[in-house]
Each structure stands twice: as structure tokens, then as C-alpha cells.
């Protein structure tokens, strides 16, 4: 039995998924209209302080880099509902869906972010800052809390304000960024930087299919799990990283589409279509000039030539006017930069031979 086998495999935590889609259910109750003052009032925890079993843990295969923070995530899908995945690339979540994401530095919880879908169909954003005793977390002010905790010598983590949540979560086809087909795929990328191990009870794409929480059912996602379309493992991991860390701003469907740089994996793309990052960045000119390289020596991604690739230059910068992503991080992701550098180095220069001439 497929379902029983799966429960045995992942542990009992997935019991909460078994609600399944089916008959139309009454609107779930208890959806917060505005953010409660304390995290303990949001429904994340059961009365005994453990995670409420209705909230399912998951781990996107390509996590967002937040200066080495350890993260944990949970989703609550209202009982009896399914996610509308008719647009494979822009999942539409049922009213009442809640997601939480916890950030810890050096073993101490610092903040837990929460987004939820209200009865009006809108999404709300809130973040909670953990107290000294680590016993509860308090709603942060709308402008966030800049430079709250030191995470490296002279470098401090800021609690984002609302405008910052929206800078990332408001620019993609779906405001939910890490609960998508590619991110939950059971065909996990062994080279994904900072990948978090799948733990028992974590939801994956196959579990969503098997427990009929997707509408339409998308059997094919269980049989042939989605993956980044790339010719070799390094390219796969690099493109997966860029999709997850940059694609929420740089995509074809949001307000920054006007830049013409699309780094987001398209879950509705044809199996043989090149990743949009390859199509829009490799061998392409951008507006940004690599300092010292001038207009002739700057490319978004110069095939075979990392030093003339603005994309890598900006990933490796933490100067505020150059760094990418422009917010949410104060430390370079050295592992990812190494990976992207290796990917760019392997790209054949094709017709772009001239860019190999040194100009820096």
C-alpha cells in the first residue's frame, strides 16, 4: 500500500496530511485577522510547548542563505483542503494556510517569521523576536529591528520590516517561495549548498501527491519528480541555488521582469527548455558594470570568465550598493560563490571569445 509504506518511511508526523482533499469543507475557523502579539498565540505550538502536530515540517531542497542561520519550517494546511496547482509554477494555497520559519544563530533562536492567508484571500506577514529565556517570541515592529544580534565579528543580523518581506515575497508568481514543486521534489540535489537533511515526518512532493493534497493531483510529480534542467551536476546545483536565492526577485512574472534577467526555475517549463537563467544571463549584457571592467568587459554571466561576470561579482560583494541579494544577508555565501564560479568557468565561451581578454 503506497500510503502505508510512505508513513512507515517518513514516520508518523505525516498523519496530519491524511485529511485529503474532497468534499467542500466549511471555511476553517481560527484564522488570525491580524498578527497576535506572541508567537505562542499563533498556533505553531501545542499547549505542552511542542510543535502542534497539525503543523508539518518541510525543508526546501535549495534553502535561502541567511548568513548561516539554522532554519526550521512548518506549514499548516487547513483540514480537507488541497493546494490549487493548476498553474504548476504559481501554487495557490487554501484560505487559512499558515507557514512559519524559525531562524537560529549559534544555537539560539532569534526570530520566527510567519505568513498566512486570510479569509479575504490576502497574505499577511509577521515576524517574532525570541526573548532572552528562549521561552516565547514577541511581534516585531513594522519597520523591523536593524542590527539586532551579532553573528560574526562586526556583522549583525537585522529583523526585516514589512517592506523587506514584500521586497522578496511580493515579486514572485506566488508569495510562498519555498513550498513549490522544485523545492519539495523528492529528487533532491546532492550538491545544493547548505541543504538541510530530510527528517522523518517532513512533507515532500510525493507525500502531497499521495495524500491528495494537490488539485489537480499531479501524479507525474511523484513518478517523475521535477529537477533543474541542466547538463551536469555543477550546473544543476548552481542554477538551483540562483533560482531559490535570486529568482523571487529576478523572474519573468514579477515587477523586476523589466530587467530581463530571469533566474527562477519555471515549474511549468517544457522538459527540454533551457533554464531561464541560461537563456537570459549567459553571454548577455546587463546594465550593471563590473567595477574596473567597463561596458565592454561586463556581462551578466561571461561564459568561461568569472571575473567579468556581474552576477558573481555581486554575489561576492557585501557593499550595500553592489551586493546581491540586496537585503537579508551581511555575509558572503562562500560555498555558493565557489559553486557559481565553477559553473561559469565550465561554460564554453562560444562566440564570446573577446571577453577572455583581460581588462581588469
Amino acid at each position, binding site marked *: 500500500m503506497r500510503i502505508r509504506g510512505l508513513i512507515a518511511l517518513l514516520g508518523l508526523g505525516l498523519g496530519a496530511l491524511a485529511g485529503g482533499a474532497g468534499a467542500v469543507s466549511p471555511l476553517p475557523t481560527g484564522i488570525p485577522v491580524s498578527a497576535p502579539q506572541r508567537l505562542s498565540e499563533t498556533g505553531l505550538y501545542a499547549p505542552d510547548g511542542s510543535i502542534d502536530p497539525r503543523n508539518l515540517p518541510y525543508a526546501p531542497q535549495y534553502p535561502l542563505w541567511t548568513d548561516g542561520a539554522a532554519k526550521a519550517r512548518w506549514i499548516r494546511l487547513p483540514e480537507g483542503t488541497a493546494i490549487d496547482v493548476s498553474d504548476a509554477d504559481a501554487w495557490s494555497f487554501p484560505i487559512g494556510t499558515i507557514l512559519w520559519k524559525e531562524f537560529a544563530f549559534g544555537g539560539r533562536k532569534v526570530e520566527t517569521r510567519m505568513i498566512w492567508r486570510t479569509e479575504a484571500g490576502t497574505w499577511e506577514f509577521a515576524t517574532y523576536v525570541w526573548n532572552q529565556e528562549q521561552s516565547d517570541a514577541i511581534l516585531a515592529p513594522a519597520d523591523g529591528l536593524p542590527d539586532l544580534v551579532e553573528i560574526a565579528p562586526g556583522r549583525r543580523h537585522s529583523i526585516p520590516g514589512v517592506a523587506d518581506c514584500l521586497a522578496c515575497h511580493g515579486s514572485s508568481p506566488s508569495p510562498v517561495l519555498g513550498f513549490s514543486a522544485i523545492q519539495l521534489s523528492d529528487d533532491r540535489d546532492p550538491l545544493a549548498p547548505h541543504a538541510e537533511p530530510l527528517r522523518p515526518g517532513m512533507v515532500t512532493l510525493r507525500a502531497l501527491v499521495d495524500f491528495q493534497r494537490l488539485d489537480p493531483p499531479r501524479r507525474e510529480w511523484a513518478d517523475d519528480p521535477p529537477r533543474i534542467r541542466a547538463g551536469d551536476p555543477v550546473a544543476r546545483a548552481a542554477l538551483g541555488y540562483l533560482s531559490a536565492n535570486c529568482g523571487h526577485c529576478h523572474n519573468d*512574472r514579477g515587477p523586476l521582469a523589466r530587467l530581463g534577467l530571469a533566474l527562477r526555475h519555471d515549474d511549468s517549463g517544457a522538459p527540454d527548455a533551457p533554464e531561464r537563467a541560461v537563456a537570459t544571463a549567459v553571454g548577455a549584457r546587463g546594465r550593471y558594470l563590473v567595477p574596473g571592467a567597463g561596458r565592454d568587459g561586463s556581462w551578466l554571466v561571461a561564459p568561461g570568465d568569472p571575473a567579468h561576470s556581474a552576477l558573481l561579482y555581486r554575489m561576492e560583494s557585501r557593499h550595500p550598493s553592489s551586493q546581491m541579494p540586496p537585503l537579508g544577508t551581511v555575509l558572503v555565501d562562500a560555498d555558493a560563490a565557489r559553486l557559481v564560479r565553477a559553473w561559469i568557468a565550465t561554460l564554453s565561451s562560444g562566440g564570446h571569445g573577446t571577453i577572455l581578454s583581460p581588462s581588469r
Partner: protein
Amino acid sequence: MPQHSISARRGCAVAATLALTLLPAIAADPGGTASASGAQIARGAYLVKIMACNDCHTPWKVGPRGPEPDMTRALSGHPQDMTLPPAPALGNGPWVWAGAGSNTAYAGPWGVSFAANLTPDRETGLGAWTAETFLTALRSGRHEGQGRPILPPMPYLQYRQATDEDLRAIFAYLQSLPPIRNRVPQPIEPAAAH
């Protein structure tokens, strides 16, 4: 194509609303000018005048009665063809920043910033912006509404306090200007950045 309409609620709680509505694609009316009324544009022109946008966004020249903004290049930002020597090193003060005579380039601890092209040229100005981009940029202080911090001396901390209505009027006016093609240089990082 589904599009988000975002309205950040200004309350004491960090909570914002992302309404998922089916609006026509952004491209349908990028500047929102089609719907801008004459009165709205006139209001915008008035605000741009009294809020001193020309001081920094129009290059200054020396005219018969001394320095004045070169209105043939109104609001087109730092001239792309103007070459500047490296900014003076000011050390630790008390003088901490310097400005070019055009009043469109400024050097300080942030590096060098250049006043943006506010005319509706699609490639080099605000032609591809929507009114939402403009409001988000001025309220959040983020370049393009979601990028790096907007650099000094752009006074967004003051302008962010304007009403939506006034900001929309300013944007409608800017979008009604003749587009001027002028690619303002990107900011220069301070020397010690790398």
C-alpha cells in the same frame, strides 16, 4: 497574467497584506499616465517645483546670472557624458561630503552617488516603472523599490511622509515629461569596499 497588488498596512504590527487579484499585466499601463488627469499632473508639477527635485535631478550650468538648472535637460539626472576626476578624499571630517558643480554627483562615506534620470525614457529613466514602483521606492528607500538602499543625498526620509495621492501626482507629472535618453552611471563604491 496574475499580478500581485500589495498594500503595506502601516500599523504598529509587522503585518502586511498581499492581495492576490487578477489585474491586467503591468505592461498595460506602465506609467498610469493614461488615467492621469490634467489636474493630477498640474498638482505633480507644483509639488516637483516646491520639493526641489530640480535642484538635484536637473544638471546645473552657469547662466548669465550665475548658476541655474539647465532646463533643456530637466530632470534627466547626472549627464552621462560628464567625466569627473576621482572624488576628493575628505578623511574623517569635519567636511564629510562633496558635490559636483552640476549638483548631480555627490561623494561621501557612501562612495559616489549620481542623481537619477526621472524622465520616462524606458531604458535610462523611469519609463518602465509603474506608480507602485515609485511609491515603494520612495517609501522603502530601496532602489527600484526592492534593491539596494537609495543613497544620500536623496531625501526619501522626508518624501516618504507624503500622501499616496501626492506621490501619485508627482509620478504622473514625471511620466508626462518628454523622455530624455541619459544613462546615469551606477554608484561608485567607496575605495575601501573590497
